């Protein structure tokens, strides 16, 4: 992992950051820096320690060991001052079902010490921004999942935060709702808001993050831009091969076939990964590799050539799929 120089103006600065719950270590000595205006991501499967890291950054969960500063402040002693400048979009919506859409924003603005009229002014503006103006006076309960998420984002922006923390912002949303949300986050980024998000969707990380760390089992296993990570850990393209599976076969490929296929692909690929339902062949040129394998007599049931993604990086680094 490349060493990140500690900078004075890092928005978030973590060294050896650790979180323990009793005997369980949720975050095990991670190092990272987030620069102002950057979109920084934590990519990893459930239970990798992403949420625990976010909660420590959010100054709501005490650091067990190591150093952490947010805006140059210490979360243990200056938590309220850090939270005053943060926007947080938690995994669970935590909206107040006893209040209307507008009231949810109004009262949240009051929690940040805004005067009523200022809170109301910002709430109106934010409802416009997340396209919920026509639902202002509605109850929260009947809103769709995507609308609730947008409302939570509006709520997180009521204090005009310099840093927005988003924990799995689009989990459980349909594609249309996700794209709308990504668009809003992209606009925030353009306005100079620093974004820090966790996700287990590689497309989300690729869409939103300038830089990310891959987390697995409480540790950071790689760090870089999505493009850097793909260049460093996998080939440009992937050839996906599926074979007809017969009764009693495991992994779609009969054991004796497996050796045969390996032989047919020998020298054609940089690396081969066998998944339960398919074979991933890592190569610079998928079409050329497919043609060469066909030449040697390989007859898969289906062939797909695609660009490598962070999912492949994760598979390479951990030997496991991201979403299981």
């Amino acid at each position, binding site marked *: 992992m490349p060493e990140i120089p500690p900078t004075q103006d890092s928005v978030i600065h973590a060294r050896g950051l650790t979180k323990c*719950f009793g005997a369980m270590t949720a975050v095990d000595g991670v190092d990272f820096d987030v620069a102002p205006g950057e979109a920084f991501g934590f990519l990893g499967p459930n239970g990798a320690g992403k949420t625990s890291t976010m909660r420590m950054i*959010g100054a*709501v*969960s*005490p650091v067990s060991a190591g150093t952490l500063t947010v*805006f140059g*402040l210490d979360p243990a002693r200056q*938590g*309220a*001052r850090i*939270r*005053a*400048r*943060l926007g*947080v979009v*938690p995994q*669970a919506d*935590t*909206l*107040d*079902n*006893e*209040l209307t859409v507008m*009231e949810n924003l109004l*009262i*949240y603005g*009051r*929690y*940040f*010490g805004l005067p009523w009229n200022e809170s109301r002014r910002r709430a109106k503006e934010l409802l416009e921004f997340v396209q919920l103006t026509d639902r202002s006076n509605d109850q929260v309960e009947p809103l769709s999942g995507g609308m609730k998420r947008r409302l939570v984002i509006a*709520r*997180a*922006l009521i*204090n*005009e*935060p*310099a840093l927005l923390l988003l924990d799995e912002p689009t989990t459980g949303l349909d594609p249309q709702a996700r794209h709308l949300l990504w668009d809003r986050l992209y606009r*925030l980024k353009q*306005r*100079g*808001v620093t974004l820090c998000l966790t996700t287990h969707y590689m497309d989300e990380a690729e869409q939103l993050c300038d830089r990310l760390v891959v987390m697995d089992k409480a540790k950071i296993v790689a760090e870089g831009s999505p493009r850097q990570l793909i260049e460093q850990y996998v080939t440009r393209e992937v050839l996906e091969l599926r074979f007809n599976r017969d009764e009693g076969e495991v992994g779609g490929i009969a054991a004796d076939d497996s050796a045969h296929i390996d032989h047919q692909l020998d020298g054609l690929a940089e690396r081969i990964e066998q998944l339960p339902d398919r074979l991933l062949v890592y190569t610079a040129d998928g079409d050329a590799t497919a043609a060469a394998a066909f030449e040697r007599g390989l007859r898969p049931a289906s062939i797909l050539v695609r660009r490598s993604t962070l999912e492949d990086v994760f598979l390479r680094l951990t030997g496991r799929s991201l979403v299981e």
Partner: protein
Amino acid sequence: MAAIASASSAPRLPLAAHPAFRILEHDLLVFRRRWHSYLLSGLTQPFLYLVSMGIGLGLYVNRSGGLPGGVPYLNYIAPALLVTQAMMAAAFESAWPIMSKINWEKTYLAALNTPIGATNLLAGDLMWIAFRAVLISVMFFAVILAFGAVSSPLAVLAVPVALLTALSFAAPIMAFTATQKTDQAFNMLFRFGITPLFLFSGTFFPIEKLPLFMQPLAWITPLYHGVALARGLSLGQVDAVGDLVHVAVLGAFAVAGVLAARITFRRRLEV
């Protein structure tokens, strides 16, 4: 939008700017939506109790020799019922609604992401419960007045006594709520704790009529002290030492509850 909020050091703020009041404000905003139902139940409950117990049951009590000093039964139980109703509401409010804010709707978690800390959540919601207790007591007192069941001007002191009694229940129950993962224990608490207290803390009959072994139990429960204090004052029977003891016991429960809740709230919410 991205303007970095000024990070000036916190200046000395007036009391109303304290973060705990923001939580109270939230609760009042919710209350504003439902005030009519609070008003309706706040007036009908005392009416029904006073008619059935005070007048109905009172008819028999008064006829069969009555109470010492010729006190009408209605005047005897009215201040006790007032205190009990405030206590019941406080006990309820510090159980299920708090559990929801911690565990079900998790609105506390949203508030914790703002400068408001766990202790201010506790303080704010305790103030709300205090507000509710006062509201209930004032409405109850208005109904008592309407029934003409007041023997002394001191009777109005039943309202602050009810407030103190409500807090002496609310604070320890809030402390307990923050230790619970589900609401299962609340059913037990109410079935075997709150309801028996309501029945046996001297509300309907003097605890001297309880079996001897149960009397010390009544002394250590805060409700007995709230009821005895409110009743004594309402009947114009001031007993300086006894009354101070009552206040001290109620205060002790409230203070101990707050101290315990400060610990359990932080333990639960700041992990």
